[in-house]
């Protein structure tokens, strides 16, 4: 096993272990962890078998196999980024609705109190 291979394998396994650790510590939801875990698995696979990388690259017409790694990496990050924007949009929508709900409920409570305070 050459030096480059060792380093990249260590890195990929490291990322994998880090994600597992984050889930264990409940700092990362399983839902999002799956995405990251599959990526690191994919990276491990490509590191271990250079043959696989070459075959995959050539089959889609990429003649310099390592560029496939970049391509996959960039595409993946793009998807994760869009996914996060979608999540953010959903969260700000619910945050918005919650704030309005809180305000409306507080008004109801105040109105109820005002009614109770008045001697009947």
């Amino acid at each position, binding site marked *: 096993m050459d030096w480059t291979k060792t380093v990249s394998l260590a890195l990929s396994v490291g990322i994998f272990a880090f994600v597992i650790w984050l889930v264990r510590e409940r700092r990362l939801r399983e839902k999002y962890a799956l995405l990251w875990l599959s990526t690191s698995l994919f990276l491990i696979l490509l590191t271990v078998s250079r043959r696989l990388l070459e075959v995959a690259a050539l089959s889609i017409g990429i003649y310099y196999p390592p560029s496939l790694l970049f391509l996959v990496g960039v595409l993946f990050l793009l998807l994760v980024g869009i996914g996060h924007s979608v999540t953010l949009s959903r969260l700000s929508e619910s945050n*918005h609705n919650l*704030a*309005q709900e*809180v*305000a*409306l409920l*507080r*008004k109801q409570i105040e109105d109820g109190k005002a009614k109770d305070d008045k001697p009947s």
Partner: protein
Amino acid sequence: MKILAIIPAYNEAENIRAVLEDLRSFRGDLLVVNDGSTDATAAVAKSHGAHVISHPFNLGIGGTVQTGLKYAHEQGYDLAIQFDGDGQHRGDQVFKILDLVLRGEADLVIGARTLPGGYKMGITRWFGSRIFHCLIKFLSGKTIEDPTSGFRCYGKKTIRLFSRFYTDDYPEVESIITAARSGLRVVEVPVLMRGRLSGNSSITRRKSAYYMLKVTLAMVVDAMRGRQPIGES
């Protein structure tokens, strides 16, 4: 008939007193929606006998107006007007936007400044207004001269629709399209307005580029959606 005046206010403690006094003769309830103000807006409004709803934090003008419309919907109001808390709108003009909705001839009435009898606006605002005017015309077939005006009257159906669909930031233009595409009758009437009593407009020149792009995108995408049902009453 239950009528509500929705007064969106963010740090308008200085203006809100005059605004509420201006609406003295308004024959309906006054609701100040306090959008997370850090000054005494809520206290001043309460001491002047208005209903007050306070957001736990700042949501922006869209969320503020929508809170008022949600309240109107929940409390069964038949009609609501939007009257800005900064003193631009005039109490003596309210009858002009109320009229068509009261008579059942419109669902959303916009008080426009640019029609004969209105006043001149700044060049940036005028330019933006023209672009929106054309976009609205193109997307909904309506001719609205002052699409960014926040002096409005909402009928019952519009209250119901907007309590579900109303955007956070820069909602004025988008809401016209939303209403028109849901088959509601949007009408514009000329009104008189004042300059601001104090403070600054929420739309700075820097923000207006974002405003234009955001609203344009929202309107174009909205045109790709199906017709929005008005919803359960």
